[in-house]
C-alpha cells in the first residue's frame, strides 16, 4: 500500500495489477476481528444478553449441588468439587446456542447482506461471530467460577492447570459452536432455533457424566456417556482443576474437537453459502 491519502488504498493498487479474485486469509482474519469487535461492543451495550451463559449455569449448579448433591455424593461440598468442571463444559454447549441465534438474526435482518456487499471475505462474518463469542464464554466462565468459589469450590491443583482447563473449555466451545452456526443457517426463523438445537444439546449435556457417575447408569446409557465429548471434556477439566487423570480424557477431547470442526465447519459454511 504505497498510497497514503486515498481512503481505500487497496483500490488504486489492485486496479493497476488486476483485481484479486479472492480476499486473502490475513485480510479475512482482519475483517473477522473487526466483526468480532462488533459482537463485543454489543455485549458491552446489553450485558443482559449474557444471562443465558451466566445465570443458567449458576442455576444448574445450585440446583444440582443443593437439591441432589447430598443424595448423589453424600455431601454437597464434595459434589460441588466434582460437578463444577462439568458444568463449565456443559455450559459451552448451551452457550453456543447464542452464536446461532445471533447469526440467524443478522441474516434475517439483512445485516449480513450489508457486510457481503462490501469487499470483505465471505467467511469473515462467520469468523467474526465465533471469535466475538470467545468473550461471552470467558465472561460466563469467570462468573461461574466466582459463584462456585462463594459456594465453596476450591481448585485443588494449581493455577496453571486450572487456567489450562479454562482455555481448553473455551477451545472446545469454538469447535462445538459450528453445530449451532449450521442450525442457525438452516432454520428459517430465530424462534425455531432453540427447539431444534435442544435435540443435539440435550444428549450432549445431560447424557454425560457431569451430574452423576457413569457407573450408576444402565448399560446402554453408559455406552453413550462414556464416549460423549462433554464427558471427556468434563473429565479433563476435573483432572486439571481437582486432580485425577488428564492425558486419557484430554486426547479423547482433542480427537472430538478435531472431528467436530472437520464435520461441522464445512457443513456450516455450506449452509451459510446456500442461505446468503
Amino acid at each position, binding site marked *: 500500500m504505497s498510497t497514503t491519502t486515498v481512503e481505500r488504498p487497496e483500490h488504486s493498487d489492485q486496479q493497476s495489477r488486476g*483485481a484479486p479474485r479472492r480476499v486473502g486469509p490475513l485480510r479475512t482474519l482482519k475483517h473477522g476481528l473487526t466483526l468480532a469487535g462488533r459482537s463485543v461492543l454489543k455485549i458491552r451495550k446489553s450485558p443482559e444478553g449474557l444471562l443465558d451463559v451466566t445465570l443458567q449455569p449458576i442455576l444448574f449448579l445450585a440446583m444440582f449441588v443443593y437439591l441432589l448433591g447430598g443424595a448423589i455424593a453424600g455431601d454437597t461440598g464434595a459434589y460441588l468439587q466434582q460437578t463444577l468442571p462439568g458444568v463449565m463444559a456443559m455450559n459451552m454447549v448451551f452457550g453456543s446456542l447464542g452464536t446461532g441465534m445471533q447469526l440467524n438474526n443478522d441474516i434475517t435482518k439483512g445485516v449480513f*447482506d450489508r457486510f457481503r456487499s462490501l469487499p470483505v471475505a465471505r467467511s469473515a462474518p462467520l469468523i467474526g461471530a465465533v471469535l466475538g463469542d470467545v468473550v461471552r464464554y470467558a465472561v460466563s466462565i469467570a462468573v461461574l467460577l466466582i459463584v462456585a468459589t462463594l459456594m465453596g469450590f476450591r481448585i485443588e491443583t494449581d493455577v496453571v492447570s486450572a487456567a489450562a482447563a479454562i482455555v481448553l473449555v473455551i477451545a472446545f466451545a469454538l469447535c462445538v459452536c459450528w453445530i449451532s452456526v449450521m442450525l442457525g443457517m438452516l432454520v428459517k426463523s430465530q424462534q425455531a432455533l432453540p427447539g431444534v438445537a435442544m435435540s443435539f444439546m440435550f444428549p450432549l449435556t445431560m447424557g454425560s457424566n457431569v451430574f452423576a457417575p457413569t457407573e450408576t447408569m444402565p448399560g446402554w446409557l453408559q455406552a453413550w456417556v462414556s464416549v460423549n465429548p462433554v464427558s471427556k471434556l468434563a473429565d479433563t477439566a476435573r483432572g486439571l482443576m481437582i486432580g485425577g487423570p488428564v492425558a486419557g480424557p484430554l486426547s479423547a477431547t482433542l480427537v472430538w474437537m478435531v472431528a467436530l470442526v472437520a464435520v461441522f465447519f464445512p457443513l456450516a459454511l455450506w449452509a451459510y453459502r446456500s442461505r446468503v
Partner: protein
Amino acid sequence: MTLAVRAEGLVKRFGTTKALDGVDLAAPAGSILGVLGPNGAGKTTSVRILATLLRPDGGHATVAGHDVLRDPVGVRGRIGLTGQYASVDEELTGTENLVLIGRLLEMPRSSAKARAKELLERFGLTEAGNRAVKTYSGGMRRRLDLAASLVGRPEVLYLDEPTTGLDPRSRNQVWDMIGALTSEGVTVLLTTQYLEEADQLADRISVIDHGRVVAEGRADELKRHSGGQTLQVRLSDPDDVAATETILRELTGRPPTANHETGLLTTPANDPVLMSALVRGLDEAGITADELSLRLPSLDEAFLSITGQPADAAEPARDNEEEDDAA
C-alpha cells in the same frame, strides 16, 4: 458514453419460479437508472445479482468495469447497497454502524470516524449519531442506510425501494439526497414501485414485469410510447355529459370515459384534428366546456398500457418468497 452498470440476459430461477427471464439493464456513468415494476417483478433479484449477493443462472453483468461473476470482490469494492435487505445493526448507534463499515473497508480508525461524522452531518443525523438505531424513526433509519452505503465512496449505488413505507416528508428528504448524489458523479440504480419516484429521479427508466424488461426509455418517451395523448373535457354543466359522449363517440369511434357527476370526459386522442372537431361539435350543440386539454398520459397510465395491468394490482409479494426460496 461509458456504462457503469451493464446487465445482459440475466436469468435467475428459484425452484420452478423464473424470477428473472432475460433482464437487460444499462446505466450510463453518473446517471440515475430507475427500475420500475410491481412487487415480484424481479427488481430486488436484479439488484442482488448486480451487488454479487446472488449468482445469476444465465446472462452476464459488469459493474464499474468488473464482471459480477469473475471478479465479485472488485465489484464489491465499488458499490454501495441500500435497500430492503441490506441493513444496519439496530443495537449499535449510527456512528458505530458507520465506523464499523469504514473499518471493514480497511480505513484507519481515525479516517473511519471522520467519515462517519461527515456522513451523519450530511444526512442530518449528527444529533442522533450516539443513539441506538432501534430508536430511530423510519426516515432517519433510511437516511442512515443511505449513509452506510456511501462510507466507501462507491462509484455505483444501488437503492432498492429506498422510500417504501416512508411518510411524504421523509420521502422528499430521501429524494433530495439521492438527487444530490449524481452531482458527485455517482451512478445510481434505483428500484421502485412508485411511478412518481421514477418520474422525479430517474434519467432513464426500465420497466420490469414478470422478470423481463417490458419498456425502456426516458420518462417522457415512455409516456408517449404508450398510446399517444389523452383528450380531456370538463363541462360547465354535468347535464351535458350524455350529449358530449355522443359527439365524442362519433368523432373517435369509441365511447369516452365519462363521469356524470363531475362532467369530466376523457378519451385517447391519436388524431391531431380531434380537438378542433370537438370544439365545433360542442359549439353546434350549444355546450360550453370549462376546460379542454390534450396531455401525455401519466406514468401510471403508461405503466398500465405497457404491462397490461395497473401498477398497484401487484401479485402477492413475490419478492419475499424469492428471498425465502433463496434461503
